[in-house]
């Protein structure tokens, strides 16, 4: 890396090298049986260069010829992608506890045994069809640049996922544990799934209309995508964010506080620097419903005369191959602050309403505008504070800037959302539900 950086330094104004080396191991259970295993060993280098205000970019899995690699980046300068920013000098980062060495040698057998244990509980308590998966990863990331930054991290992550499916439907209830090291699927998650499953065996076809809707963690990717779209410096710069002029204004109900704390190493995936080598810091995005700040990468910070908030990540909404992606602003460590009510207490507050367990089609619709229109997958119907059954064909629709103003209460427990955020359940009033009746 040093040699490549030196070579680049001779022909460019500045340069950055991003290097990754990752190992993953996964086991999969279908119909409560272990039937697939996969592992991955992936590494590579990515180079960004700046010359005369233009940005060049290249990447490779196997660095066989440094000159050719550098030439690839130089060739891409010709297109004229502007780079007003420079690579930062980052030093003295906080030390985070993000690596559990035991994951490097965690046997697939141990993951299989844990999946078997949980499968057995589901089998004994439900008639569900059962899927489970567990995966462990360890990796190294290093970023060097010509401003003198040389930062690196070694991290680990573990996930176990259980899914209990109503027979004949392929639809079910899932929960996941995400941690830095190996862990057992917590008993409370398992019993929460079984309890919900047991109460919702009966299929109902309720009338639609405006009602209370309880958004479960699996459905909240619907909100998260639209929140991060609205608050991204990229959307503000492109003039598609409805929040451009609303810093300091109330955009959501006062019970909604959204934070982004990359340094909190209680959670897996904590970071002391982003994918551009900028130091991470905690940030309050929305405080008691009031918009506090947008988030920036280096490029958009420069364009908008601001500072990078350390949110330059090589990702897309769908994930993607970070080696080949350039950094863009991403709300990487979003969490919604939990409230004080338990799930059971929130259900009691619903005279008539729908619990949306997972949202189907969260990725479609007018995301910049905050609109959503999602299928319940499944929905649970509530009458007089009791869950009375399950709903198949129904859609929940609205605009997050209205729905999240009508918050009744927020749950007291944090769950991982499928996009990496941490969220409590959220009860909203006056949400439109379309059903067959």
């Amino acid at each position, binding site marked *: 890396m040093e040699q490549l950086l030196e070579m680049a330094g001779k022909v460019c104004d500045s340069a950055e090298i991003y290097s990754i080396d990752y190992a993953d191991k996964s086991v999969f259970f279908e119909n409560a049986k272990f039937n697939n*295993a996969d*592992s991955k060993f992936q590494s590579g280098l990515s180079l960004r260069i700046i010359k005369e205000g233009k940005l060049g970019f290249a990447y490779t899995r196997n660095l066989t010829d440094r000159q050719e690699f550098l030439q690839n980046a130089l060739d*891409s300068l010709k297109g004229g*992608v502007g780079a007003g920013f420079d690579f930062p000098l980052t030093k003295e980062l906080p030390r985070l506890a993000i690596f559990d060495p035991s994951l490097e040698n965690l046997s697939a057998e141990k993951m299989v045994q844990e999946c078997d244990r949980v499968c057995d509980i589901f089998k004994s308590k439900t008639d569900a069809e059962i899927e489970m998966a567990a995966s462990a990863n360890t990796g190294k990331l290093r970023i060097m640049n010509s401003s003198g930054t040389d930062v690196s991290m070694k991290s680990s992550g573990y996930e176990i996922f259980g899914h209990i499916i109503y027979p*004949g439907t*392929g639809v079910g209830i899932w929960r996941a544990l995400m941690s830095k090291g190996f862990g057992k699927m917590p008993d409370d998650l398992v019993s929460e799934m079984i309890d919900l499953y047991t109460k919702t065996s009966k299929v109902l076809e309720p009338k639609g209309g405006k009602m209370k809707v309880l958004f479960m963690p699996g459905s909240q990717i619907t909100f998260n995508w639209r929140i991060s779209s609205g608050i991204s410096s990229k959307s503000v710069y492109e003039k598609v964010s409805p929040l451009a002029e609303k810093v300091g204004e109330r955009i959501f109900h006062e019970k909604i506080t959204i934070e982004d704390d990359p340094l909190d190493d209680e959670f897996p995936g904590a970071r002391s620097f982003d994918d551009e080598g900028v130091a991470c810091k905690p940030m309050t995005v929305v405080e008691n419903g009031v918009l506090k700040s947008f988030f920036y990468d280096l490029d958009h910070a420069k364009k908008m005369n601001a500072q990078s908030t350390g949110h330059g990540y090589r990702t897309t909404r769908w994930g993607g191959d970070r080696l080949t992606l350039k950094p863009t602003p991403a709300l990487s460590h979003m969490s919604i602050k939990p409230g004080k009510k338990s799930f059971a207490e929130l259900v009691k507050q619903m005279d008539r309403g729908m619990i949306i367990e997972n949202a189907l089609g969260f990725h479609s619709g007018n995301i910049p505008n905050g*609109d959503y229109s999602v299928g319940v997958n499944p929905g649970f119907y509530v009458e007089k504070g009791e869950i009375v059954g399950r709903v198949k064909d129904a859609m929940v629709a609205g605009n997050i800037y209205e729905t999240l103003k009508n918050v009744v209460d927020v749950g007291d427990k944090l769950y991982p959302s499928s996009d990496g955020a941490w969220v409590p359940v959220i009860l909203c009033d006056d949400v439109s539900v379309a059903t067959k009746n």
Partner: protein
Amino acid sequence: MFDKLRAMLSKVDADYADIRYELKKDTIVSFSGKELTEIGANSTDGYVVRALKDGGMASVVFTKEADAERAVRSVMESAELIARNAKKPAKLAEVELVQGAFIPALKEDPREISMSEKLELVRKYNDIPLGHEKIATTSITYQDIIREKHFLNSEGTQMREDLVTTRIAGELIAKDGDLTQNLRVAAGGSNGFSTVRDQEDYFEKRTKIVLDLLKAKPVEGGVHNCVLNPSLAGVFVHEAFGHYSEADLIENLPSMREKMKIGSKLGNQVLNIVDNATMADQLGFYKYDDEGVPVRSTQLMKNGVLSGRLHSRRSAAEFGEPVSGHCVAQDYRFAPIIRMGTIFIEPGTQSLEELTAALGDGLYILDAKGGATAGENFTFGAQYGYVVKGGKVAEMVRDINISGNLYETMKNITAVGNDLVLSKTGGCGKGPIMQTNMRSCSGGPHILVNGLVIGGA
């Protein structure tokens, strides 16, 4: 290359093993509004090894040749672990050996078009919407992605194939006061750079539609009868039915598998569905899948009755059904999974006018934006639509999202038009380790569907 792969494969002590090496070449030109945000050409490469031993089947991905040994160790450990634990041993359907290479004929090879020509073409298209005051921004990306695949298995199959995908895709965003509306643009295909040329009129038309959307009303939520245009019919058949033709999705769901038996009546009499990736000059075209099996045209539904399924070698053996050559990976970073190739509803006899007349009152909805399937439920969005009154197409509506149920909705397709259009770009995500298939092709004629639940706004 094959000698190197053969040497790696010889280290795998299994009943069956295969290795795939791919060199992947990506070219990208991307605009965000007037600004060029990305341009470049790069290549990456990597290996996938799969092993079957004593009924345990596992896979490993690695990107460094130096990792070959630990990768082989890892895949053997996994396969042996599954063999010890699995209640049902995996088997592979027998197939004929393949010794072949397939390099597709292209109408202009994107590798031979200069970067500056690509840049100018995208800039020209991008400038069309940007010339209008109410277009807030655009996001337009040109890509050519070339997968140069080398495949070898322990049975003696040796296969080379190039998959060349060229596309221009993105969205136009219009804004008026607080209201923003977006519309997708897409052009491209599997047979060369010519598929992205001459799109000026198309960009003009899309610009007009997104500007019109600023004046359209949100659709009313509830149950509607609808005519779907071919793009939407394609996504509909992909989401509402196609995924459950993929054998791996139902293999281990015993009750779904029971409902999806060959011979089950799932759809209306008028419905014939086929997956035919063998036709050249369309997005989904390929010769061999990532198990080295030649792809076959597969009739999935005939007169509403389930008549076939998409398979890997493993699922074909499990179901006792013929292999179809549909086991495909996104690229060298993934083991293959079962994928639709080119799925479409076969055309019927009725014109669009006849369909809207049959509809009477309802909606005419057009162009897919995002769909999803989970179990029996599916959703998809339409980019825009029109209210139909007394068989006549009237005012424009927006914010159209639909949900439905596999078993019910296929029976509610009551009439099939006489046209056929296949999609030019794709992007279907699937799997516990998410893979995107950018050559996922779907289509159909105009169709009439009764009783769709629309979310409204």
